[in-house]
């Protein structure tokens, strides 16, 4: 088993001190280590943004791709070699803004991917613009008068798209988050972990303290995450009380199990040469 420390790379995270991203990184490494995953069988795919630098800080395979496209890149890689554990690291802009189309389709496809979204309700790397999850009235450089667009509710969107594992974590509670990430990795199918991750530099509203006042653990409230209708109610809770933990979970065969070409094992392990002559004959 690899200890979390052994997953450290020589690249030092360049996130701001106190950023919620540090805790998420710690949880991802902890989860990989505690689940005993072979680092060379793990692929972490990210898009663009502060969050998406994460693959550089974990000694596993990684793909730091382009803005909004982490999910499709990960989908292709996972289906090409489903022996890999594929973790997708994204942000609220990356996943719910530019990548929103892929998000909905990835959820309904239910490929066995772990999707961790660093959701800080702001664009950090581009120095503080509004995000799809910014609350109404939220002031940024691009919304000086306060946001006049309703925020996206990612968990309810995932539920509506037929998500089989829909959850929320909080970077301010790494112990809880690590267990959530472990459960998400273990889940067969697409598992969403939306992480409340305060941006200490550009978001002066949704701070650690702001979240701490509001979050409560679903598991401790006696909630059982097996009813989609009830899950919708939980997913819409915001302002005063914000639930964290698994909101909905369901066992369903992941996408890979319905792909005919994968019955013979991972694509990359199948022989390259094939006989096209029978197909060619059909053109006579």
């Amino acid at each position, binding site marked *: 088993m690899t200890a979390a420390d052994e997953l450290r790379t*020589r*690249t030092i995270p360049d996130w701001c001190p106190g950023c919620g991203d540090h805790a998420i990184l710690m949880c991802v490494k902890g989860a990989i280590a505690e689940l005993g995953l*072979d*680092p*060379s*069988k793990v*692929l972490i*795919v990210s898009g*663009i943004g502060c969050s998406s*630098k994460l*693959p*550089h800080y974990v*000694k*596993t*395979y*990684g*793909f*730091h*791709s*382009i803005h909004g*496209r982490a999910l*499709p*890149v*990960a*989908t*292709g*890689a*996972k*289906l*090409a*070699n489903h*022996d*890999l554990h594929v973790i997708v690291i994204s942000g609220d802009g990356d996943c719910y803004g530019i990548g929103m*189309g*892929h998000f*909905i*389709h990835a959820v309904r496809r239910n490929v066995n991917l772990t999707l961790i979204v660093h959701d800080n309700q702001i664009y950090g790397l581009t120095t503080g613009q509004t995000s799809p999850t910014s609350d109404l009235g939220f002031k940024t450089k691009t919304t000086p008068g306060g946001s006049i667009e309703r925020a996206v509710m990612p968990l309810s969107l995932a539920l509506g798209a037929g998500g089989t594992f829909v959850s929320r974590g909080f970077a301010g509670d790494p112990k809880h988050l690590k267990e959530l990430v472990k459960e998400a990795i273990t889940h067969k199918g697409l598992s969403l972990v939306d992480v409340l991750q305060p941006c200490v530099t550009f978001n002066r509203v949704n701070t650690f303290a702001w979240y701490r006042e509001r979050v409560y653990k679903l598991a401790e409230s006696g909630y059982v995450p097996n009813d989609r209708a009830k899950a919708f109610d939980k997913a819409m809770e915001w302002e005063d009380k914000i639930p964290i933990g698994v909101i909905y979970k369901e066992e369903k065969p992941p996408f890979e199990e319905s*792909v*005919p*070409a*994968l019955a*013979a094992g991972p*694509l*990359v392990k*199948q022989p*390259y*040469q*094939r006989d*096209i*002559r*029978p*197909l*060619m*004959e059909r*053109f*006579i």
Partner: protein
Amino acid sequence: MESGSGANTLSVMIGGEAGYGIMTAGEILARCFSRGGLHVHTDVEYPSLIRGGHNTYQVCISDRDISGILERVDILIALDDTTIKEHRKELREGSQILFDLYEKPIDSKKDYPGLKGEVVPIPLNEIVKDRKGDKVMRNTVAMGACIGLIDYDFAYLEQVIRTTFGKKNAEVANANVESAKAGYDFIIDKGKCSVRKRIQPVKDAPKRIVLTGNDAIALGALQGGLRWYSAYPMTPASSILHLMAANEKSMGIIVRQTEDEIAAATMAIGANHAGARGMVATSGGGFCLMTESLGLAAMSETPMVYVLSQRPGPSTGLATRTEQCDLQFALDASQGDFVRVVLAPGDVNEAFYHTFNALNLAEKYQIPVIVISDRYLSEGLKSALPFDLEGMEIDRGKLLTEEQLAKIDDYRRYSDTDDGISPRSLPGMSGGIFVANGDDHNEMGETNEDPEVRTKLMDKRFRKLTKLIDEIPGPAIYGPADADATIVTWGSAKGPCIEAMNTLLEKGRSVNVMHFMYLKPFPRKLVLEQLKKTKLTIGVENNRTSQLDRLMREELKIGVDKKIRKYDGRPFFVEPLAKRIEEVIG
């Protein structure tokens, strides 16, 4: 002498509304002539709608290889009178029009003054009704009548109908054969018309396949070990997706219709990254969405193959027509400077062998490769000898094994090698861990903005050109080695140019064809050598701005002497092209 005027050359067109079974009939006719040992080449014209509108399928048949579409029509199968109206200009003295005068009694002389050719009446509707068949089966009756009209062997038509409909069920096949036979018998028995042109099967001809450029691209990719195909439907690339999807299981390939072209391309990059050869295909509009992925493939050095089947732009343009309008777009699409290959096969043979080669080049050089086609090549059928698969080797380049990785101490995915190509590990292999990166990076793949590192890695990526350029063939010459005039063309315009050249050679003119298939990296030396041998160069391109000529001027400061362009959404037809070339030569 008229083009394609050989004793055994025929141009048949079937036309009618969408939903009349025009496409099926055209394909069946093409195959039935090919089974008789004849060469066939087809063009399909249809508007962007499902029913109504006006569709045509033209089949050119010859006892020699035929690589262009004739303008003239010898037999016009008109399933409605619009077909006569729209195509009367293509009729010649001696042409015959199969038309249901019983259903719609038109007075051809009065309604279409100056109409060339004779109307051969056939009661398509009545025959179908008598047999209690569906109205759509008029096309089958008409096919039978057409075979009778040229005194061709009905057995070939029966064979192809049985293979085409037999898949569904024998009853449907029987009904179609009987309907075709009724049409055939009507013409033969009534003896109401003279056989103007008799088509004879060629004895002992080799067995040929009849396929579209898209079929050839798909087969070439499958032969090249393609394991992943993702696409978003877009004419004229969609039939690749259909063929791949139909063979997903038997070929052991993953085929995905994605939410958009961005996902199609980035998923394929993911598959290639994990080690499964992946390809995408689209048309210009979809390629716009794919351009961001093109740069990602280049920067992360992930092999990737894009098929760009052109249709006239800008924007939605003419969604179902043809043009060679995206060469310049493909040459420079996506931000930043990077190495890519752009190639444009000229026919189904080149489409097969060079899509195969595209997959090899992409993986050997770890770069994006763009294969350009267009509606004309992608959807037109052509007869060809079955592809010779001997010696087609899949070359995975510097792909490492775990054993090789175990011997490397300090593995660097983007190592600065002499040839610019870095040995590649795949996720899952122990000892090969790295981060593939769309940000610029150092040899390890770590994001890095140091000016020296940037320069070094850019130079590394560009160093691939040194070896790559040796694999890029120069333009091919068709016809005499030396000629007074050289037709300079690229991609799918090859066939029409060769046919036009043949016409002019028969007339005693001194002309040849220079055809470019590989366009980037541009094989400067080889092109200059070829150009030295030319006297008058005439550029022939199916676009508005002579995009190959622009490329030549950029690369060589030499363009063509004269230009022939066509941008009406239709391919070059042989006779008018020959005429225009002759006028230019003077």
